């Protein structure tokens, strides 16, 4: 893995010099900022039972559905479309190093964008001037959830990018896969899975309650099963990306 850091630093650099990254960043902060403003307005109008941080993070699916495809759709598709993947893989670099380097860079930017929303809470704290109004627990839990779940979501994006030469197809595929995984939350409540034959699938769906995971994280419950869910999901998507890429090279 000696080339992992070379590829990672190169990819981060390329993301940071790409104007598209800043456009995506501004878009992300504008959406999250407006959500935050609405939240603060609602809280200033009437007292609420739950912490503003919990409500803020419950809307994580909005940026996940749009930002993850935007951040990852270019990574491998672009290399395959331009043919630069061939140049890359004919230097002493393995497919795993390439995939992990690109994954690391996309994850770094994902965390960087989410990290920038911490400024909202900092400003609120600065103006509120009273630490009693500010509950740090759900905030730390929320960011921890973002960091842990991001491993899996970005992995899905990289996997989708490895499947097609076309960025748009990769982006749409990533959006669909993310929507399916987030949608599992609502499937478990339906009568669809109540039959005996679908019980193994139902147990899988019950483990993939991402919104429930967020609530647990916000309440300070760090369940290793949930950590394992995201870690194994990320590992699986990365292994599939590496294998998929190598299979495509074999038939190129």
């Amino acid at each position, binding site marked *: 893995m*000696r080339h992992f850091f070379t590829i990672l630093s190169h990819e981060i650099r390329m993301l940071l010099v790409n104007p598209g990254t800043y456009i995506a960043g501004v878009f992300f902060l504008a959406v999250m900022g407006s959500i935050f403003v609405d939240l603060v307005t609602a809280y200033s109008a009437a007292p609420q039972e739950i912490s503003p941080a919990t409500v803020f993070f419950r809307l994580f699916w909005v940026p996940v559905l749009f930002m993850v495809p935007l951040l990852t759709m270019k990574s491998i598709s672009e290399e395959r479309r*331009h043919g630069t993947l061939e*140049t890359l893989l*004919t230097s002493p670099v393995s497919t795993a190093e390439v995939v992990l380097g690109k994954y690391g860079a996309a994850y770094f930017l994902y965390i960087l964008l989410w990290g920038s929303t911490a400024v909202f809470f900092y400003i609120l704290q600065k103006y509120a001037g009273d630490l009693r109004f500010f509950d740090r627990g759900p905030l730390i839990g929320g960011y921890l959830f973002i960091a842990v779940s991001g491993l899996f979501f970005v992995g899905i994006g990289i996997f989708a990018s490895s499947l097609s030469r076309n960025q748009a197809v990769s982006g749409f595929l990533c959006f669909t896969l993310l929507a399916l995984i987030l949608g599992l939350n609502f499937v478990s409540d339906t009568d669809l899975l109540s039959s005996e034959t679908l019980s193994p699938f139902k147990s899988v769906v019950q483990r993939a309650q991402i919104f429930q995971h967020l609530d647990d994280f916000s309440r300070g419950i760090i369940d290793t099963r949930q950590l394992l869910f995201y870690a194994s999901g990320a590992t699986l998507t990365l292994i599939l990306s590496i294998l998929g890429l190598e299979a495509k090279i074999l038939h190129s």
Partner: protein
Amino acid sequence: MPDDSTQTVPTSPAIEVQNLVKSYAGFLAVNNVSFTVRRGEILGFLGPNGAGKSTTMRILTGYLPATSGAARVCDIPVATHPEEVKRLIGYMPENNPLPEDMRVSEYLHYRGRLKELRRRKLTSRIAEVMELCDLGRERHRIIGKLSKGFRQRVGIAEAILSEPPVIIMDEPTIGLDPHQIQLVRDLIASLRGRMSVIISSHILPEIEVTCDRVLIINQGRVVTMGTPAELRRDIIGHSVYKLEISGDLDLLSSALTAVEPTLKISETNAPDADGFRALYLTTDRDDPIGEQLMRSLGADARFRLRGLVREHPTLEDVFLVATRRSRDIIDTPKAPKGRNSKSQTPNSK
């Protein structure tokens, strides 16, 4: 690191390929290809589109695995040690794909790091290859905004950056103007003796000028291999003379047979206003018979001789004949195996 391996096994061939086969879902892209490239030699890879040149090159770089057969680079098997082989090869793929949004110096620096060049050496080596490829003034330009010629130079600079013992370039001069072709040609020639080079090209005169040996491949099979002179002799197999003469052609045949029994008229053109016509004569004799012809026909009162020249077949002629012949053999229905193998016999030379 590549230098070390070159020093430890200096006598082994740079590239050794034996019975290489690559099939895609039943289609044989490379069919039993065998050849060797000596150290410091420049080998030209010729073949029509879809002949299997790029596939063979990709297998040599360790990018694609072969279905069967063996390929060794500096005595290291490609199939089992692709990572080591990649350290020994500088490769420029077909169409020279480059990242559009990087600067030339940034790109070379990144590639140098991936090729495991030490930071201290990297800066001086980048300056060296830029000088060699005349890229000094373009070093800070974005690759996507470079002209085709400069992009090709960036690709070549990248291939030779780590000073590997083997360079493989797939169509390095495609789309270049004559000045740029000359520059690339000189650049490749300057590598002779230091690095082994395989280049594929459609520009046959260029291969003829640049390469020590030529390998012609068609429909996945090696058709022939040798120096351009050897190929001319083996593939064309006869000498061609062009005559400008006036007189009765029926009488000419017997006059020619008197000079050399194997002389035949292969092509006749219409006479010009002065009654002279251009004729092409072929003979199996390889040694020059022009002087005898000139004396004999000049002394013969029945004919008026205006010109006589020995035609030298170009590599293009050799290529056309060789690929046509191999296609005939491959396309012949139910051809016996012996005939197929005949197309590869020159390979054993």
